[in-house]
Every structure is written in structure tokens, then in C-alpha cells.
């Protein structure tokens, strides 16, 4: 127990930033462990019939197991008396009991297996459902791998315990109690002596639990870190390779792996010390009996038969004692994992609608920001400050501004991906916090500045928001996004599987699929966040033409840095450091906003170019 591995969380980031860190490795909370325990057991409730059955089956199997030596004894008696036919009868009985026992064991194993898998299934669905209910802000601050680890590795140990450990635990505890009772009836004095080590066992087991649970929790935590590390290195492999950092990343991974190793060895050390100790103490009881009982037999206060019977019981109880130790170990691990799972399940969603919130009323898509400010969790500065902005239904607004001025943030308030820290966002006159989230989000479609595609077919990606869309609708959307031609050229057209995140497509192709995906949703409000930044001018020109038609009757937000895209807008809003600094038409802003003037100026040489080549433009245009 010399050096404890360091407890510094080098890159443990789950719920670690700021006040979110909930895990304490305090050693005082045995009650907490018990609470986790009972909560885990609570997941058995839907399976209580099965649980009872598996106890019944297990107990009957024990009866069968015990009766076999008894029958064997009877058989030996028959042999002694030379009765061949009775011997055969008893032998047949033994065979029969064995078959019954087989049935019982098979039954118990199947029932227990079903229960444990059922609980795993339930818990994992619960966990995933809970994750899907958490707000986007939660994920900004998590590592995917950390969450994955909880839904896989941690669940596994809970399953082992609930499926097998718990039954063993109760079974051996029961056997021990029954055995102890029998011993007391047989010989109270010897029984009392043999049970002397019990308080010591309880104390040691308790101490072990107090030490082991946090240690195991830390093992699970480090495995999660390892998962996160592996996950990031796999998804960032292009960057790792591009910078020839394989060696260093491998070095870091080895470090992470070593941390898991160290902590595992620490908990192995605990196990190596305490488990045999728990096994050792009861054998002191055996010794005491041997010593005291032996003397009693010698001085005649106990018969040899009585002594042997007593002894046999005690020996019989050694097995359950050992099982108890193993099951307790499983329980420790399950409690450690359970704590981590519950930590996630107990993280309340922070973006909720009141129960029974009405659907978004029909409307044309008027959007209003009333004195909206937003500060991201963990940030010190406002991302948005006192935004007052009204966007009339059906208009197209361009959000312009320097990098990090808050354009994306502002637009993500409309589908309520985040809640404003103060102020209100209204869509068609209703506060977005007071309508049901699905109805709101179904009315808003967003093309993000980092187009994420799923590793499904092209068609499945386009119909993401409306899986029931017809083939014609898919094609129309794809054509509008100028994606149809390249899709047709793919090996299997619309049924081509695209790689993770769409990385088997070019940047512009990804963006166009993302646009098609937004268009097919037929939203009331369309948000294009830098949606054509990777598309060439000719293609963008065509997309723009198509968009003009699509934007008819919708409210559209365009976030762009290029004049070419901005030119679609009726109104231009200039943001700076989270504030609206200018607002108006193209001509107003060219005068009023320095940034906008610069954007326009950047386009000027090209005006010169155009005026220089007016004829050709027309010729080619024909």
C-alpha cells in the first residue's frame, strides 16, 4: 500500500470544468455507496418475477446438490449391506436428481442472463435517451469518448453485478445464515466460538469497501479518459498525420494507458491485501473449533460424531464465504460504475419547456430579439449583448461581422439551441421558451458553418429532417442546392454511402448536401451559416438563383463574409463583439459601417473588371 497513484486529473474532463465536477473521492460516504446500490437494484423492478424465479431455481438446485452426497451416503450403506437392487434404485435416483438439477441450473442461468441483459438494455436506453434530452451546451464541454465509455464499459460492470453478483451475494449470505443457525442448534458454544471472527470480517470488508470503491471509480474514470483519447486520435488522424505527430500522440496514449495500469494495480493491491484477509479470518474460526472442540472430545464433553458433523458444516460454509467475497468485489465495481452512470443521469437538462407547452402557432416567420444577452457557460465575456432586432416575416437578413462577433450564436438562439441569458427571442410573437421544442425546431432549418453529415447514404442525409420525403422531393432539393449533378456522378447516385462526417466528399459537396437537407425540411425560417464558403463562384451563383425562389415566403438569415452572398439580403445587420452596430440596406451601410464598406471595397476591383469586359460578359452569357 505504499505509493498511491497520483489523483491529479491530467486530462479528465468529464464534468470537471468548474462547478460541474460532481465526483468526490471522499471516503466517508458508505451511505452513498449503499444509496447507489439500492438505486441499481431498483432497475431490477421490472424483472422482479424473474428475480424471484432465479432465487427459487437456485435454491432448489442447492437442495439437489446437497441431496446427491446424501443419496451417495445411502448408496454406500446399501453396498455395505450387499443389496444390489436397492443400490441400482438409489443410483437411478441420483441420476434423476442430477437431471432435475441440470434443468434447474439451465433454467436459472437463462433467467438470470435475461434479467441482466434486460437491465443493461434498459439502462443503456435510459442513458441514451437522457443524453438526447440534454441541451447542446452540455456537449460543448464534454468529450465524446467520456460519454461513450459510460454507456459501454461502465454498463458492463453493472450488468455483471445485477445479473450474477447479486444472486450469488444473496445466495451465499442466505447459506451462511442457515448454516450458522444449524450450527447454533447443534452446539451453541462451538457455534459462538466459530463465529468470533465474524465482526472482524465485517469490519475488514467495510474498510475494503471504503477504500476500493473510490479506487475503482478512478479506474473507470481513467478508462473513460483512455476512450476519449483513443476517440480523438482516431477522428483527428488526418491532423496527426499531416503534422507527423504519430510518435508524440502514441507517447501521450501510452501515458494514458499507464495511468489506467497504475490505478488498476492500485486496486489490485487493495484486492490482493483484503480478499485473502477476508478468506483468512474465518479459518481462525476453524482453528478455534479444532482447538476447543478437539479438547472437548478428548475430555468427553463432546462426541466425535458431534464434532465431525459440526466441522462438516463449517467446511461447507467456506465456499459461500469465498463467493461472498467475489460477489462483494463485483458489487464494489458496480457501485463505482453506477456512480458514474447516475452522475450523468442526474445531470438535469437545462433547456426545457414547461410540460404541455403548446406547439408553435402558425405564422410567417417573424423573428424578434428583445434585449437579448448571452454568456456561454464558463466564459467571462458576453457572446451577445443587448441585441434588439426585429426581422419581418419573409425578409432575408444578412448577418455580417468580424470573426467571433456572435453571428452563429445569434442565429442559434432562433431554434433555441441555447437559451439567452437575459432577454427574449420571439418567433411569430411567441417566446421560444414557451413553445414545444420539436414544433419550433421543425419550423427552423439550419445549415451550420461546419456541415456535419452522417455515414449513411446521400438520400438518407438529405431526408434527415423528413424521412418520408419522396424521391421527387429529394431531387428537387438536391437540384436547388446544385448537388444533383455531382450526386448522379457518384458510383451509386443517391444511394452512395458517404464516409463518416461526409469526409469522402469534397468540402463544397458536403456544404451542398447540407443545404439540400435544410431545404427539404420546408422551414418557416431558414438559416444559412457560411453555407457556401467552400463553393466556387459559378456554383454559388446557381445556388443563389435557386435560393431566391426558395426564400420566397420564408424568413432567411444569411451569415456570410462575401459580398456575393450578402447581396441576397434585403436587410443587413452588422455585429461587432456581440452587439448590433449597424442595421439597414446596402446603401445605408456602405456609408455607415466601416466593416461593410471594407467588404464592398474588396469587391470593387471586380466592378472595374466587369466594366472593362462588358461585351464578353454578354457574349458568354448568351
Amino acid at each position, binding site marked *: 500500500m505504499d505509493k498511491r497513484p497520483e489523483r491529479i486529473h491530467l486530462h479528465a474532463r468529464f464534468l470537471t470544468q468548474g462547478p460541474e465536477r460532481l465526483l468526490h473521492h471522499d471516503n466517508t460516504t458508505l451511505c452513498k455507496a449503499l444509496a447507489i446500490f439500492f438505486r441499481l437494484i431498483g432497475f431490477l423492478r421490472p424483472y422482479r418475477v424473474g428475480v424471484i424465479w432465479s432465487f427459487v431455481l437456485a435454491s432448489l438446485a442447492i437442495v439437489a446438490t446437497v441431496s446427491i452426497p446424501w443419496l451417495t451416503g445411502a*448408496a454406500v450403506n446399501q453396498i455395505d449391506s450387499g443389496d*444390489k437392487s436397492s443400490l441400482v434404485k438409489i443410483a437411478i435416483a*441420483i441420476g434423476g436428481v442430477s437431471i432435475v438439477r*441440470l434443468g434447474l441450473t439451465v433454467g436459472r*442461468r437463462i433467467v438470470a442472463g435475461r434479467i441482466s*441483459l434486460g437491465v443493461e438494455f434498459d439502462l443503456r436506453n435510459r442513458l*441514451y*435517451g437522457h*443524453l438526447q434530452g440534454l*441541451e*447542446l451546451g452540455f456537449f*460543448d464541454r464534454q468529450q465524446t469518448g467520456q460519454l*461513450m465509455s459510460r454507456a*459501454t*464499459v461502465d454498463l458492463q460492470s453493472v450488468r455483471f453485478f445485477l445479473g450474477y453478483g447479486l444472486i450469488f451475494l444473496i445466495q451465499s449470505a442466505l447459506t451462511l445464515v442457515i448454516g450458522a443457525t444449524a450450527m447454533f442448534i447443534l452446539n451453541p458454544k462451538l457455534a459462538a466460538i466459530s463465529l468470533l471472527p465474524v465482526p472482524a470480517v465485517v469490519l475488514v470488508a467495510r474498510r475494503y469497501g471504503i477504500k476500493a470503491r473510490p479506487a475503482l471509480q478512478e479506474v473507470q474514470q481513467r478508462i473513460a479518459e*483512455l476512450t476519449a483519447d483513443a*476517440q480523438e486520435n482516431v*477522428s*483527428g*488522424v*488526418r491532423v*496527426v498525420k*499531416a503534422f*507527423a505527430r504519430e*510518435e508524440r500522440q502514441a507517447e501521450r496514449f501510452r501515458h494514458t494507458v*499507464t495511468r*489506467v*495500469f497504475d490505478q488498476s*494495480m492500485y486496486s489490485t493491491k487493495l484486492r490482493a491485501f483484503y*480478499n*485473502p484477509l477476508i478468506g*483468512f479470518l474465518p479459518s481462525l474460526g476453524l482453528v478455534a473449533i*479444532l*482447538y476447543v472442540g*478437539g479438547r472437548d472430545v478428548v475430555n468427553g464433553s463432546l462426541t*466425535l460424531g458431534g464434532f465431525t458433523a459440526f466441522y462438516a458444516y463449517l467446511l461447507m460454509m467456506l465456499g459461500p464465504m469465498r463467493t461472498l467475497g467475489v460477489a462483494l468485489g463485483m458489487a464494489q465495481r458496480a457501485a463505482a460504475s453506477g456512480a458514474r452512470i447516475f452522475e450523468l443521469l442526474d445531470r438535469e437538462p437545462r433547456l426545457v419547456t414547461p410540460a404541455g407547452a403548446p406547439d408553435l402557432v402558425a405564422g410567417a416567420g417573424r423573428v424578434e430579439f428583445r434585449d437579448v444577452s448571452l454568456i456561454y457557460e*464558463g466564459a467571462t*465575456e458576453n457572446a451577445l449583448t443587448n441585441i434588439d432586432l426585429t426581422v419581418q416575416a419573409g425578409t432575408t437578413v444578412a448577418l455580417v461581422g*468580424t470573426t*467571433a462577433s456572435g453571428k452563429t450564436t445569434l442565429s442559434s438562439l432562433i431554434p433555441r*439551441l441555447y437559451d439567452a441569458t437575459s432577454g427574449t427571442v420571439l418567433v411569430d410573437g411567441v417566446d421560444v421558451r414557451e413553445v414545444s421544442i420539436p414544433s419550433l425546431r*421543425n419550423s427552423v432549418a*439550419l445549415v*451550420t458553418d*461546419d456541415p456535419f453529415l452522417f455515414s449513411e447514404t446521400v438520400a438518407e442525409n438529405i431526408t434527415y*429532417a423528413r424521412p418520408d420525403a419522396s424521391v421527387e422531393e429529394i431531387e428537387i432539393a438536391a437540384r436547388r442546392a446544385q448537388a444533383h449533378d455531382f450526386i448522379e*456522378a457518384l458510383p451509386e447516385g443517391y444511394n452512395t454511402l458517404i464516409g463518416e*462526417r461526409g469526409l469522402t466528399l469534397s*468540402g*463544397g459537396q458536403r456544404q451542398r448536401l447540407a443545404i439540400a437537407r435544410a431545404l427539404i425540411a420546408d422551414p418557416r425560417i431558414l438559416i444559412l451559416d*457560411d453555407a457556401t*464558403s467552400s463553393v466556387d*463562384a459559378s456554383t454559388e451563383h446557381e445556388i*443563389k438563383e435557386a435560393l431566391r425562389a426558395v426564400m420566397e415566403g420564408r424568413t432567411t438569415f444569411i451569415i456570410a463574409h462575401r459580398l456575393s452572398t450578402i*447581396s441576397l439580403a434585403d436587410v443587413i445587420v452588422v455585429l461587432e463583439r456581440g452587439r448590433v452596430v449597424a442595421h439597414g440596406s446596402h446603401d445605408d451601410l456602405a456609408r455607415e459601417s466601416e466593416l461593410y464598406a471594407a467588404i464592398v471595397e474588396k*469587391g470593387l476591383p*471586380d466592378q472595374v473588371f466587369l466594366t472593362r*469586359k462588358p461585351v*464578353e460578359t454578354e457574349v*458568354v452569357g448568351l
Partner: protein
Amino acid sequence: MFIALIAATAATLAPAPLIKMAIDKGIVPGDLTQLNIAVAAFIGFALLLWATSAVQTYLVGWVGQRALQDLRVRIFEHLQTLSIGFYSRKQSGVLVSRMTNDVQALDQLVSDGIVTLFQATLTLVGTVVILLWLDVGLALISFIIFPLMVGASLAFRIASADAYRITREKIGAITSYLQETISGVRVVRSFGQEPRHVAAFSELNDQNRVANLKTVYLNAAYFPAIELMSAALTVAVLVYGGFQVIDGSITVGVLVAFIAALNTFFDPIGQLSQLYTTYQSGMAALDKIFELLDEEPDLVDDHRAPALPRINGAIDFEGVSFRYGEDDAGAWALRDISLKVPAGQTVALVGSTGAGKSTLAKLVARFYDPTVGSVLVDGHDLTKVRASSLRSQLGIVPQEGFLFSGSIRENIAFGRPDATDAQIADAAEAVGADVFIQEMSAGYDTEVGERGAQLSAGQRQLIAFARALIADPRILVLDEATSNVDIHTETKIEEGLRRLLAGRTAIVIAHRLSTIRSAGSIVVLEHGRIVESGTHDELIAAEGAYWRLYRDWATQAVA
């Protein structure tokens, strides 16, 4: 370790004979000294058991954990040798599952397995000797269990191999689905598709349950079957032995002793068969791991390949054609590219989307090898030099910026971990990122979140840009490096770049044509072919593809 194992096994077996000794020699004849000796020996063995089990648990744990962690590192290192093409085909969640779930599945096998295997085998061998010594005929009957057990185990293996393999695949699928829907959570939320994912996940989860249930059924059939065989043989020994006793060919004492010993005989057999199921499930995981380890790296460096010396940066494409995908079915992404970029020059690649610009850039970094032709740097064929020596002299800003979770500082210094604070600040300043970084709550120590989730798109791009510059690369590849930043910042970057690019070769890909007007030469790609090249003025004068692109761009700029 083996000493500990043997000692522990001996100590486990010791109590029974000691008690017998205590009864026979001490209690029955009333010899208290003998009893005391037995008691003392008993305590001694119990202490020995404690000590040896402690040592054994520790050592076995050490060996097992070492093996697991080594396996993890091996998978990781092997994955690093695989090409980008491999990663485009595989789901990252599945790869992660190999390093986590599958290795974890071996945990039980290595931690309990070794001890069980050793102790059970030792006990088994010991009892075999005792049985033979007691009665050869009866022993031979008992040994029928061996062929039966082998048969049952074979049948079990055949029946279960598939089932276990499928469980590995299912947990891989779950991991991968989790991974994908968590990383795409922004899209999931903004389209409000949570219920659909919850349903799909539940379906996968259910498949996992069904697959595992199948192994439960198989285990439930196998292990008790072995128990049944044991019972049947006990009965056979009892009847056959009993008849012999009655016929007087053996004594009752021998039969009773034999039956008692049979229990110690079948016990380890039960344990071994139990272990065999653990082994099967561990093997399924290990198979999956080996499948991955057997994946041949398709872009291997010849181990004799020399490192590239410090390069000047002349790039030469000689008749390069390239297609993604191994089969001939894939369309050509690049056709007959012949292009010379003199050292120190800036070349701009333009062309419509999907024309092959990024692909060309990827070939320079040797993410892929050309299907036909070769890419040369300073006259060195890239397939004949060590990839790392090339890449360490390259600075790439990929189209899809990827940041690691960690601080801004760590991300900028990614390509050069020993960079000083001043160098990091310089790189940030060159791309105009210093201002916003200094304004952040923790400056350069601000966490960016996974993939830079806590930054704006432009901020991510700027950091990726700074990351490419800091390593002082000889060749810079900028794939739309400023597509998401505003005009002010872009202008600043352009100024910074002019200074930075002096003496370096650069390949610049951009759709905003204003950014590339000043490039030394402009190459226009259409459908994977070079259709034009020259300076801005030459190409405008030629009124070809570039001119058309430029016109479209300019028209829009003022529309």
C-alpha cells in the same frame, strides 16, 4: 509467480489432510500435543495461504494488466500506421471499441483465467494420480469424462464462435452509433430528430441484447451439461464399484475414498469448463483485435527509405492520375496531372467544387499515393522517402479544420511541442488570432473543447492556420484556409502571409478569387484535369475557364 501459484494451491489443499491428522492422531487417541501441532500447522497454512494469495493476486494482476495495456498500445500504434484511406472506410467508433470494449472483454480472462487454469489443472493432475492409486478400473471409468468433455467443448466452440463474434460486432455498432450521434449533436438538435435516434439506438441495443442472449443460452447448455456428465459418471462408479464391493473384489473403504476424491476431480473440471466459456468470449474479442492488427498498412514506408533532407520545396507532378477506392469502378479524381511548382513559388489552385483541388493537396502530403505517375519533392519520389520526414517540413491547413480538446496553446503548438510562448504568440499574430486569444478568459490556456466546439468557425480556422505556420514549414498547403473569416482578418492574414511566404513554396486553394490574384501562378482544375495555368493577368487575357470563374465571382460581388 509460479511459485506463488503452486504455494497457494498447496495451501488451499492443506486443511483437509490437516484436519484428518488432527482427528486421527490427536482427538481420537486423545493426544493433545498432536492436536496442538495440527492446530499450529493449520494456522501456519492459513497464514501461508493469505500471503501467497496476496502475492499471487498481485502478480497475476500485474501480468494481466500489463498484457491488456500493451495490447491497447499495440492497437493504437498499429492504427497510426494505417493510411487515411483506411479511416475513410472504417467507422471510428468501431476502431475505438477495439481499444476499449474488446480489450476490456479480455480483462476477466487474464485476471481470473490464469489462476483458475493453473490451480484447476494442478488439482486435476493431483486427483488423477490419487484416483489411479485408489483403483485403476474405477479411475478409467471416471476418465471417460475427458473425451466427453472434449466433445462437448468442441460442440460448444462450433456453436458459440459465431455468437460471440456477433456480440463483439454489436457492441462495436453501439459504440459507433453513440460516437456519431454525439459528435453530430448540433445537427440532431437543430432538426429536432432526437426521437428517431433514440429509436434507432434502441434497435441496436436490442440487437446487442439478442446476440448476448444467444451466448447465455449456449453457456446455459454447456456448463450444466458437463455437470450432468460428472453426475452420470459418479453414478456409474457407484454402481460398478458397489457391485465390486458386494462381490468382494474391493473394500468399502476404497470405494468411499474414491467417491470422495471424485468430487475433487469433477470440481476443477467444472471450473475449467466455466473458464472455457470465458475463454471463448475473450477469444472472440481477441479475434476482432487481431483482425485489426492484421490489417496491412497500405502506405508503408520502405524501411530502408531515407529521410528527406531539408527541402527547398520544388514540387513536381509527373503524369499523375488518381482515384479513391481500390477497385477500378471509382471515378478518376485526378487525370494526367503534370505540374511543376518551383521552390519558393506560390501556386493557386482554382476550379469548381469537386474538381480535385483538395485531392491534389492530399497527394503532396502523401495521404494517398498516386494511382499512376509520381509526385516528387526536390526530385525525390514521395513513395521512396519516409513520410514523416516529408510531413514535418509541410504546413497544412486542411479544409476541415480539426482541433484537439485542450488549450489554444496546445493546439497551436501541436506540430511543434517545444515551441516557446513567444513563437506561439508570433504564429497567432501572423494570422491575426492574437487579439481574440488575449481577450479570452484564460488567454492561450483557454480550453477549445472537442473539435474546438467552444470557438467560432473563424477562430477555429485561425488556430488551424497558426498551427500550420509554427513549425516553420518549407511547403505550405492552404486549403481554403480563410474561407470562414471576415475580410478584415483576411486582409491582415494576407499581409502577414506575404512576409511569411517569402522563400517558401505554397499551394493555395481558394474560392474567393480576390485572395489569389497575387499568386505567382494560377492553375485551373476541371473534373480532375488541369485546363489552364498562368498568372492572373494572362488567364484573364486568355478568357478561358479562369476568366469565366472570375466573371461569375465578380458579378456576384456586386450584384
